[in-house]
């Protein structure tokens, strides 16, 4: 029975009882996972509310010269991941490459929930979110990357929700149209997110045109791992293979992941070499802090080993058939990239703005370490993604696939 027929001819009552039945069908492990992610979400919500009411200066570790902490880097993490998922899934259901088609619905849903998680986390970092809702609309500043980023991600989120609904209802032409708008929106939003950092002349560590390209490439890289992880997880929840085409699909995604790992490695190498060659003011100390300094563990361990080298090795060895290796690669990359985003956001700020002036205190890097509240909100963000994913698997009955092209 297709989803379309199911949803189309049902009354509200019947739909409710159908949903209840689906939700009751989980294993013990499923409910345990639901409980854990639910608690994570709750912890994040409590921490976020407490900090918003009590004042960020009391509960967060940010400061005047490092105003953006781990919450921004987590937002960046989720937002770029959402873009990556959206782009990878679009290969199939927007551009019609057959191998990528089985993932369409789940991918759209994942893109929606990762972006929502990002929005929830950043809502805890924005000091006066109520004013944001009002003045972003009645007093927009069109030269502001952060405005464009917010508007475009907001648009993409809305459009993706419609796309998802159209997919469920089987209205594929509308879904493809929405999907196309969503892809364009996510791409534009993502590059504006990069512009938020990259267009600041006064912050040399970020400044330059390479960030938008880096963001999109690394987004696709993470998106692939995210899709692999959640599809393999979904197989366990649904206690069986999702779709006959799924192994081929995941294998195809793996190839994209390998390509993107190489692209990011290439970027990382050249960025480092360029900095070492010329010692550019404001960049050199940042890169050195990552190579040999305070951030070296986070850089070599998180950014190089966990997000690039180990996943590269595992993806290659898996040959696209060993799902355990692929699952491990995906999980490690998702952990490693968290450090990659954190390095990008934080190291750009720890270099004092007056360093080039040689004033007292400016030769050392500034310090930032996240507080318990910030970490709880981050945990809450991950909890939200997990919780929504688990719910989605049951509510949407494992996203049954139909060919629609």
């Amino acid at each position: 029975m297709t989803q379309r027929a199911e949803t189309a001819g049902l009354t509200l009552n019947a739909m409710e009882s159908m949903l209840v039945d689906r939700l009751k069908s989980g294993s013990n492990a499923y409910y345990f996972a639901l409980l854990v992610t639910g608690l994570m979400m709750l912890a994040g919500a409590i921490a976020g509310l407490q900090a918003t009411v009590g004042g960020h200066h009391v509960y967060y570790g940010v400061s005047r010269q490092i105003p953006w902490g781990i919450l921004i880097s987590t937002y960046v993490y989720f937002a770029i991941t959402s873009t990556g998922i959206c782009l990878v899934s679009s290969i199939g259901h927007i551009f019609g490459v057959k191998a990528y088609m089985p993932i369409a619905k789940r991918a759209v849903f994942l893109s929606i929930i990762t972006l929502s998680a990002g929005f929830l986390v950043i809502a805890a970092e924005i000091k006066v979110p109520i004013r944001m809702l009002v003045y972003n609309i009645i007093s927009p500043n069109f030269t502001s990357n952060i405005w464009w980023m917010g508007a475009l991600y907001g648009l993409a989120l809305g459009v993706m929700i419609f796309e998802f609904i159209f997919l469920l209802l089987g209205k594929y032409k509308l879904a493809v149209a929405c999907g196309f708008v969503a892809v364009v929106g996510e791409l534009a939003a993502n590059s504006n997110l990069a512009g938020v950092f990259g267009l600041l002349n006064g912050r040399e560590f970020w400044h330059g045109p390479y960030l938008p390209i880096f963001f999109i490439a690394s987004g696709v890289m993470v998106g692939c791992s995210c899709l692999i992880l959640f599809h393999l997880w979904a197989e366990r929840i649904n206690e069986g293979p999702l779709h006959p085409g799924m192994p081929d699909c995941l294998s195809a995604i793996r190839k994209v992941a390998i390509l993107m790992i190489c692209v990011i490695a290439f970027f990382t190498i050249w960025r480092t070499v360029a900095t070492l060659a010329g010692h550019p003011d404001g960049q050199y100390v940042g890169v050195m802090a990552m190579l040999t300094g305070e951030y070296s563990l986070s850089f070599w361990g998180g950014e190089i080993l966990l997000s690039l080298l180990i996943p590269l090795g595992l993806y290659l060895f898996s040959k696209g058939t060993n799902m355990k290796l692929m699952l491990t690669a995906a999980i490690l990359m998702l952990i490693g990239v968290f450090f990659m985003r954190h390095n990008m956001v934080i190291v750009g700020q720890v270099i004092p703005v007056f360093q080039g002036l040689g004033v007292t205190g400016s030769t050392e890097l500034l310090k930032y370490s996240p507080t318990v509240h910030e970490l709880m909100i981050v945990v809450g963000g991950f909890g939200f993604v997990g919780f929504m994913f688990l719910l989605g698997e049951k509510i949407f009955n494992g996203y049954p696939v139909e060919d629609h092209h």
Partner: protein
Amino acid sequence: MRLILTTILCSSIFLLAGAATTLAEGDYPEDIYYMKPVIGVVFSHQLHVEDNGMDCDSCHDGIFEMEARLAENEESFTMAGLADGEFCGACHDGDTAYDANTRCTTCHVGVIGYSRAHGLVNEEGPAHH
């Protein structure tokens, strides 16, 4: 009578001992930080006595009182006063020593210098306000 004598004797011993400890040759207080009329003007006994070989009478004979920072209360303890030969200006006239009107930050270490010398945190804190 004996009590009075004992008292006088004891106190004179203490006085002598006290004078001996404060006035011993080559012994002087730590750096003085003047706080008026502006914060953070340093005077170093070490620099003047040890490095430049001056003796106590060079200054403590009509120019500065023995007690630190009394000069702050004087109206002429300003740059204008110094230019007229008062206080530091007695030597720092461009002749005996460099003019008080030059090399400002040699003596004016400011709030930053004062805070550093007294172990107060002056720079922006690492994380919280």
